[in-house]
């Protein structure tokens, strides 16, 4: 019995771990259908269930404004951060070893530094420059702040793949007549694309989610994170509904991506098998 249990545990411990991670998300989706209280909070024992929270979510102007602001910020921050990170990774890889060590170190310092320290230093910077010339904090300061703290994370994501890049590919490309710029866009970028996509996803999430730095430099701009984190009296129904929408979107996205990958892998596998049979002269695969 013990060996049956240990066998079962070996097979299913990952599923158990994933269950522990995903159960709160499932609860979030379920509670998003519990109608809110008089103060707009989610309650443990609701007297009715329905779609009311979702209907009020998209008529709440403050929420819609904050969502629009967040999307604008993410739209600007992501391409700028990832572009800077990609160029930095290539430049560091292409240069002396000492540059790599320095770059890695500086990126790590930025990452291990508590966000509140980063936020305070950025606030002081803007207070002595931006505010000093009579401008207010807002989108510009938020976007610059997000670029500054997201870029190191993008660098850390892209650089490991850059390290595995073979220098002789660059030499071969140049031998074939490509300029440096052409080589970068036609050889390096396609090679780095999986890491770039990963960096984009990471930067989007970090920029979308950030509160500490955003709250210090936002001025009059509100974002979804500042609206959510400043909930002090109960958990608001709109926050649960919005979280639930995000969870469902990500589940659908990951499911579609996994399905496409599965189909692609299956096709490749089928192709390989049929090739194998043709080579061995066993006949066509329809007879198998």
């Amino acid at each position, binding site marked *: 019995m013990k060996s049956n249990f240990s066998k079962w545990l070996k097979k299913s411990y990952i599923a158990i771990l994933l269950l522990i991670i995903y159960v709160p998300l499932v609860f979030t989706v379920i509670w998003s259908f519990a109608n809110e*209280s008089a103060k707009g909070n989610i309650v443990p024992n609701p007297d009715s269930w329905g779609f009311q929270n979702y209907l009020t979510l998209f008529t709440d102007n403050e929420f819609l404004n904050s969502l629009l602001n967040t999307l*604008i910020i993410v739209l600007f921050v992501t391409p700028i951060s990832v572009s800077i990170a990609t160029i930095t990774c290539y430049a560091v890889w292409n240069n002396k070893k000492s540059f790599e060590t320095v770059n890695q170190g500086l990126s790590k310092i930025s990452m291990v530094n508590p966000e509140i320290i980063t936020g305070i230093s950025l606030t002081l910077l803007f207070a002595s420059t931006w505010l000093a010339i009579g401008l207010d904090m807002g989108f*510009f300061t938020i976007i610059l702040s997000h670029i500054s703290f997201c870029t190191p994370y993008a660098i850390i994501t892209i650089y490991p793949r850059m390290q595995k890049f073979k220098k002789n590919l660059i030499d071969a490309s140049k031998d074939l007549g490509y300029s440096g710029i052409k080589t970068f866009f036609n050889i390096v970028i396609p090679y780095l694309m999986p890491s770039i996509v990963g960096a984009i996803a990471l930067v989007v999430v970090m920029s979308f989610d950030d509160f500490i730095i955003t709250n210090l430099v936002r001025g009059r701009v509100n974002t979804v994170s500042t609206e959510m984190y*400043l909930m002090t009296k*109960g958990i608001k129904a709109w926050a649960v509904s919005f979280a639930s929408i995000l969870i469902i979107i990500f589940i659908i996205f990951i499911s579609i991506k996994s399905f496409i990958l599965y189909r692609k892998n299956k096709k490749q596998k089928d192709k390989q098998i049929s090739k194998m049979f043709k080579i061995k002269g066993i006949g066509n695969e329809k007879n198998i």
Partner: protein
Amino acid sequence: MKKIFNKLINTNSKKYWIIGLIVAIILVPIILLSVSLTVNKRDFVLANYQSYISPSVEKKLAKEYGLSFDSFETVENAKKLLSSNTADIVATTSYELVNWYNDGLIQKLDWSKFNIGIDSAADALNLFTDSVQTILQNFDIDGDGNKDNLLEYGIPYFIQDFIFAYRGSEITELTNAQNWSQAIEVISNHDRFKPDSKPKLIAVDDARTMYSIPSAMEKNGDINPHKNETIESLSNTLYKLSDSINKLGNNAIKFNADANAVLNDLATNNVNGAFLFNGDALYASYGGDDEIVINDDDFHIVKPNDALVALDLFVFNKNMTNDNLNKAYQVISELCLNFNDSNPEDTMVYENFDYVNYTCTLQSLYEYVKSNYFDNQVQEQIFEISNVNSNSLEVSIDNITKSNLSFAWINFKNKLH
């Protein structure tokens, strides 16, 4: 676009790339700046505590005046919104208003601009209840040694006192307690508040607010710490409360910074007693978020005469534009001052009170609510605030004392069994 891009990357000329880079370096900040200055501009902002204004009132004010809303956790955070010009109208407490005046952050009010037939702050006093008037005339704003009128700089919003509410049948000694000493004496010896497997008491996790109880017990009703009071001295005062609570046994009380959680625990009878503000107690008496039906004889309160009383007011940012200033007077007039008891439910003041349910400051609204709003006597008692003296008002404390109080609070919690 693809052709241009391909042409760009296929060209051997570095010149185009350098020009492109310079254009990008100039264009990107310009685009960012224009986004910053134009998109979703929040020109006119009111900052308040969360859930301290009705959502329907917010929508009406947003539609009529283009007002946006911001929230803050503590009144100390609210100062940042003023000083960084993030908000035009900010909610604050009576003692913090004095600090903000001294920091040059708020502007003097012109009561004639509220268009309610009142021309001066002195005349405006009579608009408010006696308790509110006592508070409004209790502070020396400009430091000249004379008491001033807070209406020169602020408009009262809601008033609240810090009380004890409990479930079950009435405990006569507790209801008759005149002050915190008597109340704590009864609470700390009554079986109803003894923990079983979990605590039967809950309180807001706020050092300054909870300090008011043992301070009133020790200093003859004075709820405030003294200037530069040491951690040891503050801790010793707080130990008066912990020693009493420890008589109930281990794990007798729990704390929660979320006032909503405190009132819901009381409403659902997870606890038998709670230390909380009267507005939260009122919502708990309605059954809290779950809207549980609570019998009249199953909910009681204790209002010691040395309980902390807090008055919230709205102030105007000194750096507001003239356009916003004119709108601000109209907004506050509708939100806080214009009450018509012949058509009360048409007024924003009433609509807002109906949601927030804290004790209103406007005399006419107060009288109307007392007479017409509540279902039972307990709710009316919760709503009433009448015992206001200078000792029961919070005063500003310096940062060292604030910091010492935080440490003393940790010592207090460690001393609890």
